[in-house]
């Protein structure tokens, strides 16, 4: 009779092992394989397996296992990541792509908080990332500041620039709100193109990351193995992504997540029950912009170069597409979506020239045929918290 006596049926754990192992193998294969025909075959197999898993309950079983064993999930993901890094240890290009995917994914986690949770439209994510990147570049020219602080400053400056937009973002809704961030995103580029102080269209060069005395341009020597210097960036971006994932996940499974959802779904009900709409919107906007700025700074440092062309309105659009593609509001969906959007055009040579049109058609197809995205967001169930 008591609520706690209704024990939840625990699912099997093995689907989690299988899923993580499969993801790791598929990822490694997609990065490693150069031969276009083989790559096509690998892609087809991956897609087919994913489709079957979704069709015959494999995805659902994995989700259950993952939510019941969060620490096992985290451990397995860490192991799998290390395995992937080990296999790809001297593939510079592959590692660079992986880090880029992780950077995009993390920025999109920020967008998930803004758009998926609090319902703020943001068509300037790339501009906020760019703000972080330029901050890193300018601070790098001055010198003196340790890189850990430089990266954080990237996030903080993005938050600051975002706070200039906060009034229009709060006062406008729907399409009117889309305009403000869109205008900002376009403006950002026009401004940088015209401004010599920030290097104009040619952009700025900046040095790589040096974190707590460890220079990221060094190769890693460990157990007699040599890991490419890019492993540094994959590890850093991987840790940042993991932290952001955990943070956003905890946020979602807390009152804050519930209030974000209510603010998005029904402002009237929210305010009648005491939620201050402006506060929650500012909070979501700030968190998202911080992540964008931080990862923008990492990106600039990693590529050693920053220019307006890297942070166009089109790039903001790509980021929004990743969020929609993954399933808006679902933080796990961001990973495969970022992978598809960032990695595929790099790997499939015949797409490279056509990448934008590829995105466009992909997003149109998703929106018409599967508007909830690849992995639709599930209803939040706080029952584990509420009935322990």
């Amino acid at each position, binding site marked *: 009779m008591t*609520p706690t006596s*209704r024990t939840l049926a625990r699912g099997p754990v093995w689907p989690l092992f299988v899923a993580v192992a499969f993801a790791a193998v598929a990822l490694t294969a997609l990065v490693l394989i150069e031969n276009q025909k083989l790559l096509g075959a690998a892609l087809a197999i991956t897609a087919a397996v994913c489709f079957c898993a979704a069709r015959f309950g494999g995805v659902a079983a994995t989700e259950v296992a993952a939510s019941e064993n969060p620490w096992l999930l985290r451990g397995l993901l860490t192991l799998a990541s290390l395995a992937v890094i080990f296999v790809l240890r001297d593939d510079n290009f592959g590692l660079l792509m992986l880090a880029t995917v992780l950077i995009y994914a993390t920025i999109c986690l920020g967008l998930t908080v803004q758009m998926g949770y609090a319902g703020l439209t943001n068509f300037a994510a790339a501009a906020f990332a760019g703000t972080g990147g330029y901050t890193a570049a300018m601070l790098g020219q001055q010198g003196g500041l340790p890189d850990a602080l430089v990266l954080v400053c990237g996030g903080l400056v993005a938050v600051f620039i975002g706070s200039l937009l906060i009034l229009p973002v709060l006062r406008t809704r729907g399409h009117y709100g889309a305009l403000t961030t869109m205008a900002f995103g376009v403006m950002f580029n026009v401004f940088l193109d015209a401004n010599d102080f920030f290097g104009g269209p040619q952009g700025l060069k900046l040095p790589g990351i040096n974190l707590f005395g460890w220079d990221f341009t060094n190769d890693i020597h460990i157990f007699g193995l040599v890991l490419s210097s890019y492993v540094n960036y994959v590890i850093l971006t991987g840790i940042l992504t993991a932290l952001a994932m955990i*943070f956003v996940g*905890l*946020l979602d499974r*807390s*009152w*804050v997540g*519930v*209030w974000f*959802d*209510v603010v998005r*779904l*029904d402002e*009237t*009900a*929210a*305010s*009648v*029950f*005491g*939620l*201050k*709409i402006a506060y929650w919107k500012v*909070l979501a906007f700030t968190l998202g912009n911080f992540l964008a700025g931080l990862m923008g700074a990492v990106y600039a440092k990693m590529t050693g170069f920053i220019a307006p062309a890297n942070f166009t309105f089109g790039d903001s659009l790509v980021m929004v597409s990743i969020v929609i593609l993954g399933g808006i509001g679902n933080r796990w969906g961001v990973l495969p979506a970022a992978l598809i959007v960032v990695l595929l055009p790099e790997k499939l040579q015949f797409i490279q020239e056509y990448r934008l049109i590829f995105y466009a058609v992909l997003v149109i197809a998703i929106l018409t045929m599967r508007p909830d995205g690849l992995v639709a967001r599930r*209803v*939040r*169930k*706080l*029952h584990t*918290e*509420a*009935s*322990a």
Partner: protein
Amino acid sequence: MTSLSNDVLLESRGLTVRFGGLFALNELNIDVRNGEVLGLIGPNGSGKTTFLNVISGVYSASAGKISLGGIDITREKAHNISSYGLSRTFQRSRLCLSLSVFDNIALGAQRTLNNGLWHNVVQRKAFAAEARKIAEEARELLGVFNTALPDKLFDPAISLGMIDRRRVEICRALIGKPKLVLLDEPSAGMTHDETDQVVDEILGIRKSLGGLTIIIVEHEMGLIERVTDRCVVLNYGKKICEGKFRDVAADPVVREAYLGQA
């Protein structure tokens, strides 16, 4: 009228709401006494829902004064008014359908919860304790309805039928232990039998909570007759009559207002 006696919970004086040139409420003086159930009736467009909206802060008053428990709330924002002990339901169901029943009910207890980022993200044990407490209270409240609702606490609100959604809305309004609850057409969208059932349940809950003050807006006169201690009749934003339902219903002015409408 002894309007200044200290058992008045909500008091409106000269309350006026204008939309452009239209007077939705016109110089309205209404007293709601502690512990009573006040029925607000009147023809369509007479300003009943506007009255609820203005005292809950959804609209702002053009003129006049509202005080709740002796505190002037006329210029307060909606999100502050709830902290003075006011909550409500809506005419059209305003549950967040894609959220669970639990999430929806928790909203009603929002001002008693810790909203700090640190508490929510880092102090997970404390958060879980809070969630457990709300879940228990929610189950208890849902249990009053004598249905399977407590077992559906973590189901999405969209999976519930109309009557259960209304029950959840009522729980959401009650879980924050308000002093005054506004019920806006609790019968809307339900059959006659369902309405009767919900009314009994509301009365039951009220009894168990002990003397909750309620303002109820309703078209269903049978319901008004059964639950209200007193009624105020509005027409064109003005109070045209006040008293026990039986007396009000017999009043020629009221009859004319309704018939004139029809």
